[in-house]
């Protein structure tokens, strides 16, 4: 066991040796080491978050045919640090009549809900984070805290725009939690476990190739959970000014902003873990844990890039369209997909790997095609009905 093969255990053993050498209790030393590890991971995430601000601004600039930050430091890399200093020296205002406890707790919970998601992320074969056997459910539970923080911010600000933003976020959560849960069932079925690491271990073939439709629906639900365009109803700059975070200033606003970016990156990471093999890439992850982390970060960045791509290409949809899209299309489709996957999984058990993958892939394509055909024919009927009504009115 050397440092390059298992850096975490070596470092932990070394630190525990030092602490017990100081006459510390062994259990206490262990907890202290874990605490330091958690602190290190979260600090790295916060530093990464600072660069995510830069990445997001650069990418949105490219999508909109601009250059983006390019003045402060090389390629504008120092820009986010300047932004942080500005946020810190801004006045921290609390609006009249706000519910102070809830108002101040909301930005903290917003950031915390994202950070604790990383507890279950397996970074490398030897760095599993916390190896929870209900990792998938943990993802949902921690995500719900993020939604809750938005609702808290919207309600406690004593502002009408914020209030409407909070209400809309409830509608989004009510709509997209169900397809998300259903789509988390599909990796669970394939892996036979809710453990994140077991799901990665089971991906000799990436689950994306076994169930592309599930990956797509998961991405849609994840974007809705993030509250990003086209589902950024809670923020809705053009209608609600800034929605739920309208009354926040200074670092409290910064926490919402940074939390949203890190949340998007984190969901890119979970997309990679659930459907793109996480840290695995043709056995490269066995070479060194550092390489495995690099692979995971690259995959998460690609997922994050897709989420940004959607955000800066799509228009915001209306709340009734959002609820209709989910309840009349996505929820029936995702449950149909879960049942078809379960059926195919049982029928193809013991079959060759290539047969399993091909069968699953084709069943996904068929389910998606049937769903689109039904939606298309319903839309055609609706269009004919509306046009018929118009024709009759014109006739009169």
């Amino acid at each position, binding site marked *: 066991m050397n440092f390059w093969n298992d850096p975490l255990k070596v470092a932990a053993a070394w630190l525990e040796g030092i602490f017990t050498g100081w006459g510390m209790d062994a259990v206490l030393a262990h907890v202290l080491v*874990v605490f330091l590890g958690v602190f290190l991971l979260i*600090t790295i995430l916060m530093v990464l978050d600072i660069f995510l601000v830069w990445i997001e601004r650069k990418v949105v600039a490219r999508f909109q045919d601009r250059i983006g930050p390019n003045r402060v430091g090389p390629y504008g890399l120092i820009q986010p640090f300047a932004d942080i200093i500005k946020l*810190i*020296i801004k006045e921290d*205002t609390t609006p009249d009549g706000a519910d102070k406890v809830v108002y101040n707790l909301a930005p903290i919970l*917003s950031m915390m809900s994202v950070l604790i998601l990383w507890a279950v992320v397996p970074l490398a074969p030897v760095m599993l984070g916390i190896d929870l056997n209900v990792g998938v459910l943990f993802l949902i539970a921690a995500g719900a805290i993020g939604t809750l923080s938005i609702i808290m911010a919207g309600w406690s600000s*004593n502002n009408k725009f914020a209030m409407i933003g909070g209400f809309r976020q409830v509608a989004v959560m009510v709509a997209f939690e169900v397809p998300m849960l259903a789509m988390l069932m599909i990796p669970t079925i394939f892996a036979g476990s809710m453990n994140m690491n077991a799901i990665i271990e089971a991906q000799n073939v990436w689950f994306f190739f076994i169930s592309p439709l599930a990956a797509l629906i998961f991405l849609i639900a994840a974007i809705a959970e993030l509250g990003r365009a086209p589902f950024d109803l809670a923020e809705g700059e053009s209608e609600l000014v800034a929605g739920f975070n309208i009354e926040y200033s200074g670092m409290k606003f910064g926490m919402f902003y940074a939390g949203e970016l890190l949340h998007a990156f984190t969901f890119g990471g979970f997309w990679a873990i659930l459907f793109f093999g996480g840290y695995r890439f043709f056995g490269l992850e066995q070479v060194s844990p550092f390489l495995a982390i690099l692979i995971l970060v690259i995959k998460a960045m690609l997922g994050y890039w897709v989420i940004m791509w959607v955000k800066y290409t799509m228009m915001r949809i209306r709340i009734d369209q959002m609820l209709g899209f989910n*309840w009349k299309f996505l929820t029936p489709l995702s449950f149909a997909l879960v049942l078809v996957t379960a059926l195919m999984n049982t029928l193809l058990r013991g079959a060759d790997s290539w047969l399993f993958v091909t069968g699953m892939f084709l069943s996904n394509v068929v389910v998606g095609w049937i769903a689109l055909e039904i939606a298309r024919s319903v839309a055609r009927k609706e269009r004919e009905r509306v046009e018929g009504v118009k024709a009759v009115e014109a006739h009169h």
Partner: protein
Amino acid sequence: MNEWLYVALFIVVGMIIPIGAIAAGFIFGPKKPNPIKQSTYECGIEPVGEAWIQFKAQYYIFALVFLVFDVEAVFLFPWAVKLGQLGLYAVMEGIVFVGILVVGLVYTWRKGMLEWV
């Protein structure tokens, strides 16, 4: 049980860091409140009335349907975990279970409750 202790550690550290950042803002930022600055923002005009009014949550029925499906998903997860070891019978049971709920969804739909009013 040990693992959940680590989750608690994550929650603690995950709260300390944002609290630290906000505290830094509180320490270094100016504190000059005045009534106009503290008033809530309504596009530059004087705020009219309260924000905490009775609000018509049009998605009330959606929320009820959501609750049913959310609980259903909790029941389905153990089924999904053990599906690899169970036979076709378990799949059929799953189909029946989801089918009953889909009938409920169709009923809600036909009653016109999934329309935005």
